[in-house]
């Protein structure tokens, strides 16, 4: 399996401005969120990227891409018909090849030297099938995420064969259908916002509104795996999400000590003013 295309969805009505926000990356350079995501994608040897945007957003996004402009194409989602349909818009770009997929409002921070996307694409290439990065998530927040379950693959660390996918389950439903052997009580495997899909996904998306429903079908049709990652994801669309993402980048990068000392200063002075 050779993966050299990626699709980034950024057409959500409430997230249009998020990929355009500027952050300081791990190397201390100011970059847009979109550019950081694209650089993440590029670590995985991807050479064609498609960004699905809302009508009229292309110009602003193009400016935010930075130096990789030549590798990036934009496709408009003409009507706001949801996440699954946004991905479906990229079907012609993808053609009949497997592809890497990321969402435009999440940043991923690896705890190793290897990028998150790079890790996922490597496993997908080895396993020759669709694969989603997942993260152990406590039951009190699973209602925000697509959640999967299935048995662990023997002899493979952190790999699961997905049997069930439910979008934003309640803990009640999760406990009934999504318990995964070996996980801590009350913890489930939730999407990390990064996937490698086979083109079969587009046939399934044609008849489904939601990506999770299509993925549940995909799991029945073909081998579909979950890679349990210890990396971190940051949703920049939630309250203080951008701040948390920035802190995560800064604390895992070159300026860690400087940022830490500034934070301590802020903490000390805010405590002082409260007193």
């Amino acid at each position, binding site marked *: 399996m050779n993966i050299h295309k990626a699709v980034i969805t950024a057409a959500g009505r409430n997230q249009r401005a998020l990929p355009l926000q500027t952050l300081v990356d791990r190397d201390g350079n100011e970059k847009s969120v979109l550019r950081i995501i694209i650089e993440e994608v590029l670590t995985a040897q991807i050479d064609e990227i498609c960004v699905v945007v809302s009508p009229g957003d292309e110009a602003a996004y193009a400016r935010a891409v930075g130096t990789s402009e030549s590798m990036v194409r934009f496709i408009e989602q003409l009507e706001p018909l949801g996440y699954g349909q946004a991905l479906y818009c990229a079907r012609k770009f993808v053609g009949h090849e497997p592809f890497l997929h990321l969402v435009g409002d999440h940043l991923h921070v690896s705890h190793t030297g290897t990028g998150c996307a790079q890790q996922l694409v490597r496993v997908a290439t080895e396993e020759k099938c669709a694969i989603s990065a997942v993260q152990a998530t406590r039951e009190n927040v*699973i209602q925000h995420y697509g959640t999967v379950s299935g048995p662990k693959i023997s002899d493979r660390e952190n790999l699961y064969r997905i049997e069930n996918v439910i979008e934003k389950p309640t*803990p*009640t*439903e999760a*406990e*009934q259908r999504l318990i995964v052997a070996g996980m801590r009580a009350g913890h489930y495997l939730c999407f990390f916002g990064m996937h490698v899909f086979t083109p079969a996904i587009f046939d399934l998306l044609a008849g489904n509104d939601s990506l999770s429903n299509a993925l549940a079908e995909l799991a029945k049709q073909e081998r579909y795996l979950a890679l349990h990652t210890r990396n971190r994801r940051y949703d920049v669309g939630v309250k203080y999400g951008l701040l948390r993402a920035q802190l995560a980048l800064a604390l895992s990068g070159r300026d860690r000590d400087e940022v830490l000392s500034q934070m301590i200063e802020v903490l000390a002075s805010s405590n002082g003013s409260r007193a």
Partner: protein
Amino acid sequence: MSELTGIIVSKDPEIRNRSLEQFCSAASAATLLEECRSLDLFRRSSENLYERVRAQFFLYAIHRFYLPVKEGMQRTGLIPFAANANILKRRFEEGIQILLTAQASQGANAALSSALAAAYHGLAFQTLADQVRQSVRSVRGNQWMSRIGHPADYPLAIRPELLTKGSTGLYPILRETTPVRMDLSHSGWSDIFFLGMDFPEGARVLNASIDLAVRGSGEGSPQPPVEAYLRVIEEPVLRLTSVDLGGMADISSFAEIFDFARDYLGLLKAAVIASGMVPPAMEGCSEPLSDLLARLVGRGMGIEIVSRVRDIPKGSRLAVSTNLLACLISACMRATNQIHALTGTLGEEDRRLVAARAILGEWLGGSGGGWQDSGGVWPGIKLIEGVNATEGDPEFGVSRGRLLPVHHVLSEDEISSETRQRLQASLVLVHGGMAQDVGPILEMVTEKYLLRSEAEWNGRKQAISLLDEVVADLRSGDVRALGSATERNFFGPIQTVIPWASNLYTETLIDRVRSEMGDDFWGFWMLGGMSGGGMGFIFDPRSKSRAQDRLQAIMTETKERLETAVAFAMQPVVYDFAINQKGTSAELLTGDSALMPRGYYDLAVPALLRIEPRLLQPARRAELDRFGAACRTAPELAGMMQGLFERLLPQAAEDTSGKAQPLKVLLEQFGFDPAQHDQIRADMCNGRIGLAQNRLPVTTGIQDARTGDLLDATASITDSRFARIGLDALKAGEIAVVSLAGGAGTRWTKGAGVVKALNPFCRLGGRHRNFVETHLAKSRRTGRATGTLVPHVLTTSYLTHEPVRKWLDSVDGYNYPGPLLLSQGKSIGLRLVPTARDLRFAWEEMPSQILDEQKQKLRESLHGALINWAREAGEGTDYTDNLPMQCLHPTGHWYEVPNMLRNGVLRELLEQRPQLRHVMVHNIDTMGAWLDPSIVGLHIDRGAAMTAEVIARQIDDRGGGLARINGRLRIIEGLALPSEESESGLSYYNSNTIWMDIDLLLGAFSLDRRDLDDEAKVASAVRNVAARMPTYITIKDVKKRWGKGQEDIFPVAQFEKLWGDMTALPEIDCAFMAVPRVRGQQLKEPAQLDGWLRDGSAAHVNSLCDWE
């Protein structure tokens, strides 16, 4: 391995199902004690739940029924106080250890065995309850709720559909309607969790979901009886309303939600918790509830939930409360997306989840039915069966069966629609009006199952085969055969397993219906735990209408005849019913339809009208506008305005005068002494008398009776001299019997105010007998045996006199051949609202049985609410907020003997029988008391003014006994003992059967026979002795009935003087006689009946009686 352990662990059902009785009847005391040692070791080491529990039940039964009566067992012994205290605090293991140590030092004896039986019994039920609780929590879908303990972790959110206001400005309302369930089979209570989890193959029930309407109420066609309404509100509170109980509260803290007994909203609170809307782990959370609501609904927003039961009374045996709980839970789970379908019916998986949550809710609310009770969630008729636990189930390896059964909904291919129609056309459903506590019955069923007593085990097997017959009859559409099967089930296996499932009222109804309807009556059908409440009668469809009319009349007439003897909660009703083919179902009320049920506005609008319109929330204002418009147009709201007007301006004056007048009249009529009453009130309020002041000073010297202090009549009296003396006296007509029948039997009916003496408590000699009839039957037998009729006096009080008189008239005094006199009580008290001090003393200082964890929480919450009630109602004020007769109280049995002096009964008796010299006075519930010639002889020979009978104390004998108080041997009341510990040092308990020498007793009153004509002298003599008797303040429970079969129980203060204190008077020569337990034991609570029947006491009493 011991023989009994072998039975428990055997894999062979033939051996495993062997009864304990078979072994124990033949075994010696030494063998049984050896078996007990082995069983105790085994129960400590076995890892299997049911092996442990069965061993505990075996130990209980051996100590309760077999060991105490074995040859060579000591009758007396001392139960260590620490053991008793541990048992009361549910620390059973520690209690057992202390008792076994005491057994090693004292030797095995009946007293210790009684305590060991109580401890093993408690431990067995605690083990089972813990396991069910753990299983309920570990059901998948329930577990997360015990992990989420802070609003910051709260994972649920309200569905967006409920957050969208319509054009009317109203939020949509989610309305869930649920049928109730009717048990079509009654397969021997096999749906009790403990049974289903040990014997899944025998746990089978056929039940139908039904809609109901009370016949003649003008409600129209049957409807699902329970409803829940849920909507979003613009206030950060949880607003709960129970329309039928009239309760409404805005809840803003977690503590209030978990305070179940604070108001009438306990069931709604349990539903909110069990649904996960406020997860159980939030108990104790100190954050404001609004933090959770902000996550659930949005900042500044809240939820309103309303429950409604359509005129179905409590105790209907149709599991109304469980189905209401399930209905509320379903609505809450739909609203929070835990169930995918917001409206319509539920899928099988969701139904099971709701049922599991309902079980959790029942446990939280301190109740607990069987697993079939939430059957209304499912549609139509279904066969519900236990399932073996398999790998992956949380129960696997713990119990043989799973907690939750499987429901097979029978299709129309299996039971045709014609059969369903035919069933509806034949079955008359009624509520007989009795509302009983089935809790003790469920415990008895569990116990008998685990002991595999032969008759009961065979009964269970018969019930299982009858279920197959019922299913076959339904499949073939033969409703007549169905009626025959359900009636055979009632008179056969059900009563074999639990005789108390039937009662005189039910059997009278069946007899009368059969005699009136003849062949058109096809059979009786018992619903649920016990009869007397919800019941079914099957008729030829052509006669159904007439049968409905006649049943209403027969029930009403029978209730009127029995209501002074049997506790009824409400007027009997006949239902119209229809099988519900949907199960629980929901719809979304939007736009103009988004209104709550009618009764809700009765409660909510008066308060809203008092708020300035500009201060009302916009949604509230919109609702009032819409409600006003609907009142003018919607037929279901017709007359609403008039009702509201009456609520706003209640006619208080008329109400109070209506109640006060008869009470005043009654007080005058019964000789109420207002001066004494005011004195008692003042003393109580000032702390001069009260529960704490009942007690003797701690410096009082208290010693147990010594050998030689007592006449011994515990074994058969070998000296024939006494029997001869007794027989001579009986033949000479020197002896009479006085049965004390003035009491209300508070513990017998939990304060229902019926006459205990007339309560048909047990089937003896082939039919139900009451206490009076049984005592007369004993006197009749003595009279026949000696050739001289025995005079029998029944003392009565204001409460019991007329009912007893009328009853005796209606049964021609049971054709009692001898003199039968009623001694009417002449004293009466008016109950008082207790002081908070006395309530605290009663509940916090005095020993009481600690309950199961959740029930205890509920009890403590209720106590808090009742202490507040006492403060608000006014401590020490007259208790008048109830039926007049419930506000009065008898003043203790001390007065009952002097009353015979004052009201002329003794004089009359002596005129008829001048030779009369002695009377035996006994409590109405001392069933074994009789004129045993040897005991008569012992009393006469001893020559004392009074001879008091005592029995060797056992664990349940609380409330004083025989003691040497500062050197004098006397009867001491439990109320007067300085501490609980002092009671545990007394070997003998007061049976309250006292022999009196009439002349010596009159002498103690400074009277003789001739003085009985002098009313003034007698009155003065009585007053003088009364003044020397201590006055005790006691707290009694009194029921207040309201609504449709609802009952509240209030604690009230009253005073009493007790006859046992006469033994303290130095001028009276008293003797004391130890008698066998079977003679001296008293029946204080209905829960004692089963043991009384099983240990041979009932058969013994029957042998003393001549019924005709």
